[in-house]
């Protein structure tokens, strides 16, 4: 059992300054070696509305947030009213006693009206800092940690701003020391600094580690963080970053850059991905590898732009007309995003096809702590069968002259993989065509549409993927094999399902195991069928309305899950949603559980 596992909520209107105290708090906790998971619930407005940041910290690894708070910092009345009911016994609510009415709290909740005006010296933006400092005091964290974090946070704003914030922080800290009851636990210092990153940062960093030289995007929540990271680092890291007129332009530009030999990438959300789909078919047809990320949000159409969902699976499976090889992967966490992007680039270079990543708002905008030793910035780079110019005296080049006919870009090899020369290489002139083409690139409709050649080339492309499955790891069943229930998830829900399994075992006495699937195409049908056909009761857990993955699983394996837990209200699963669904399905004939989210955020 963990010694320390607590959750802090900071909420207010957009523009009230929630991100800054949130960042400082998360930093301080991560620097002490705690595992962090943070998630910001917000709306598509720049000022006003309701924004609520949850930071959970624990001394053991966690992969999700919860909705049972130890500390609530409401910056306005609305936040107080919405969230007071979620406070645990022994928890504390810190608020401006002048402007906010506390309401009725459950027993054991410490309501702490703070004399904000006095403590901040009238600085209207200082209330957040006071509450933050008071919280740290209650958690038993020394003031120096806060001073260091404040200094780092405001270092670009100059000495005066830093000093002002430190002074306000000290007032809050000392007030809490003198007037408030500390928690029953102290936050330990585990002695190892943890790194903090969002999934969007992780995608971008995975990209640069893989050698991305070209990144293009059109801003679209919740994928814009990748563009901003890339733009910030473009000059330092030598990456061409372009904001393009639309997502059609994005994917075509990325394919153009990739065609010259760059590793090139783009990220978008479902609507932008829809515009990119024809381009993905081009990547498949001309065999120019790219990586394209879809950070899913609640759809369809504009949907709920700032809320999470796993609703784009079938869009991705069906992206672009015709058959073409592609790889689809749904990473399970921020760290997994970082590690998967370079792996995917190697696969795409090897198989000369597009690679698609399904992320979602939950992990892309959510923040997690990561052990820095896990961040390998020098992953293996394998470009596959690529021919670059450069004049190596060692390599053979049997081609010659400007009108050389010996090189076949789309050579019908046994593996289906053909040697890929990039423009500029002497002796390898060819055309890359989205029309069906012959081995040398000639459009078959420019001679006579030849059904035998068409069949040959379709089979060549398809054949490339025969070995792909052996290059990626199959999913692994976690937990006892003879469990009562098997929970199956995919992508971003791994952390919350793991915790639900623990809660089922601990609080409910139900033995569950967990199969989490990450590689969608190609699919480990055999391994998955083997595992699930031995399971007693299989329940699919997914963040969409129609059970997209359950249908995919059935289409690939013939296996139908016994039950489903689905959430499609825009908010992520909490562990108890899954626990309650499992209990309901074991106790009755229910095969579908749809949890109700308890707070309006």
């Amino acid at each position, binding site marked *: 059992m963990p010694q320390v596992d607590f959750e802090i909520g900071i909420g207010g209107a957009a523009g009230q300054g929630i991100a800054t105290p949130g960042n400082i708090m998360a930093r301080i906790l991560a620097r002490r070696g705690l595992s962090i998971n943070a998630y910001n619930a917000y709306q598509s407005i720049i000022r006003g509305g309701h924004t609520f940041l949850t930071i959970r910290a624990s001394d053991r690894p966690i992969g999700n947030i919860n909705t049972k708070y130890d500390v609530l910092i409401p910056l306005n009345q609305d936040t107080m009213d919405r969230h007071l009911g979620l406070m645990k016994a022994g928890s504390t609510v810190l608020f401006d006693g002048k402007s906010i009415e506390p309401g009725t709290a459950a027993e054991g909740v410490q309501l702490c009206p703070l004399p904000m005006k006095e403590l901040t010296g009238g600085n209207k933006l200082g209330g957040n800092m006071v509450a933050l400092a008071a919280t740290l005091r209650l958690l038993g964290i020394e003031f120096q940690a806060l001073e260091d974090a404040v200094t780092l946070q405001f270092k670009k704003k100059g000495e005066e701003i830093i000093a002002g914030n430190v002074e306000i922080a000290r007032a809050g800290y000392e007030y809490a020391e003198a007037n408030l009851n500390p928690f029953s636990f102290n936050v330990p210092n585990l002695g190892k600094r943890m790194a*903090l990153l969002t999934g969007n940062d992780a995608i971008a960093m995975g990209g640069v580690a893989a*050698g991305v030289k070209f990144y293009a995007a059109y801003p679209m929540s919740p994928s814009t963080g990748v563009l901003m990271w890339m733009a910030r680092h473009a000059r330092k890291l030598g990456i*061409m970053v372009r904001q393009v007129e639309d997502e059609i332009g994005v994917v075509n530009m990325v394919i*153009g850059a990739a*065609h010259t030999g760059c590793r090139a990438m783009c990220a978008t959300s479902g609507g932008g991905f829809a515009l990119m789909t024809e*381009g993905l078919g081009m990547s498949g047809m001309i065999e120019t590898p790219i990586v394209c990320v879809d950070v899913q949000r609640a759809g369809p159409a504009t949907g709920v732009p700032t809320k999470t969902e796993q609703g784009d699976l079938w869009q991705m499976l069906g992206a672009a007309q015709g058959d073409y090889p592609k790889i689809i992967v749904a990473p399970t966490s921020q760290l997994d995003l970082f590690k998967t992007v370079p792996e995917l680039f190697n696969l795409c270079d090897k198989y000369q096809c597009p690679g698609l990543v399904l992320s979602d708002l939950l992990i892309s905008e959510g923040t997690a702590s990561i052990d820095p030793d896990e961040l390998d910035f020098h992953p293996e780079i394998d470009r596959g069968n690529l021919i670059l110019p450069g004049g190596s005296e060692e390599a053979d080049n049997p081609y010659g002259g400007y009108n050389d006919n010996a090189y076949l870009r789309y050579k019908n090899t046994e593996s289906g993989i053909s040697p890929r020369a*990039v*423009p500029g290489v002497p002796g390898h002139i060819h055309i*890359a065509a989205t029309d069906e083409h012959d081995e040398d690139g*000639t459009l078959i409709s420019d001679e006579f549409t030849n059904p035998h050649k068409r069949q040959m080339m379709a089979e060549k492309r398809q054949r490339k993927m025969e070995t792909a499955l052996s290059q990626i790891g199959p999913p692994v069943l976690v937990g006892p094999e003879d469990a009562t229930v098997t929970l199956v998830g995919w992508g971003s829900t791994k952390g919350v399902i793991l915790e639900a399994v623990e809660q089922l075992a601990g609080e409910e006495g139900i033995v569950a195991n967990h199969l989490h699937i990450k590689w969608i195409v190609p699919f480990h049908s055999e391994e998955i069928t083997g595992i699930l056909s031995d399971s007693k009761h299989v329940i699919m857990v997914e963040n969409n309305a129609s059970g997209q993955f359950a249908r995919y699983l059935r289409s690939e394996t013939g296996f139908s899950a016994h039950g489903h837990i689905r959430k499609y209200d825009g908010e992520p699963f909490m562990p108890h949603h899954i626990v309650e669904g499992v209990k309901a399905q074991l106790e009755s004939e229910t095969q579908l559980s749809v949890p109700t989210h308890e707070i309006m955020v």
Partner: protein
Amino acid sequence: MSTTVESKPQPAGQPSGDSYKGKIHPDWCPGCGDFSVLSALQKALLELNLEPHKVIAISGIGCSSNLPGFINTYGMHTLHGRSLAVATGVKLGNHELKVIATGGDGDGYGIGGNHFLHTMRRNVDLTYIVMDNQIYGLTTGQISPTSIKGMKTKSTPEGSVENPINPIPLAMVGGATYVARGYSAKLKHLVELLKGAIMHEGFALVDVFSPCVTYNLDNTYQWFKPRIKILEDEGHDPTDFHAALDKGYLWGEEIPIGLFWRRTDLPTLEQSEAVLEEGGPLAYRQLGLSEEQVRDLKEELY
């Protein structure tokens, strides 16, 4: 392990007339204006002594977009309307390549209109040749964005009621830095326009009247012949923006061809991007991060 191979350089030879001859004979209709455009482009490349492997022709979809298949340079035959987006990516990926985008009026001014506007304002260093036949040919004869008002086609049996795009003023105000119009029946003149466009540093549009002898029976060689006036013969100054706009708007009894507008005072997109200042084409650069870069990235994470 990487199986990347690097190719030995070829002995440099002087390109000859055959160097640009494609493997496939063009399958355009006999009499199509596109034959002359292909021929003019091959002549321009030869006269500029550009090596075929350092040139890439990138098209969209349509009759004229088949051109990259008929010329011996690197080529891409992309999607309908997307040639300029792909060409921009190619140019930024390897800015040492001479990039020539080709296509038709429907491809460039219709479905690709958005990319057309934005590629111009970015002043990407590429040549865009639009074989403008004022009709959709490959779909067997429907109106295009440059079809004249009143034109009867299979999609406008009673005559088109829409106004056409005039690409010349559109390109001028859109930010193109070299704006020309050629005519496929004036081959020598077209070769000179193309040479100027290819050597121009920045976005160059060469809109070429390239009559469709099968589906456009309005704007034929006979129709153009008395109307075409060559700007170079009239002493037009291509650095005079307002005179160029006036000429660009002329349509009817007199239709000017030639170089309307050129400016050389604006940097190209590639010249404006610090990332390309040194280190050669992005495509050929070493992959991966230095220890110093990694240290800086990690430091951001605490």
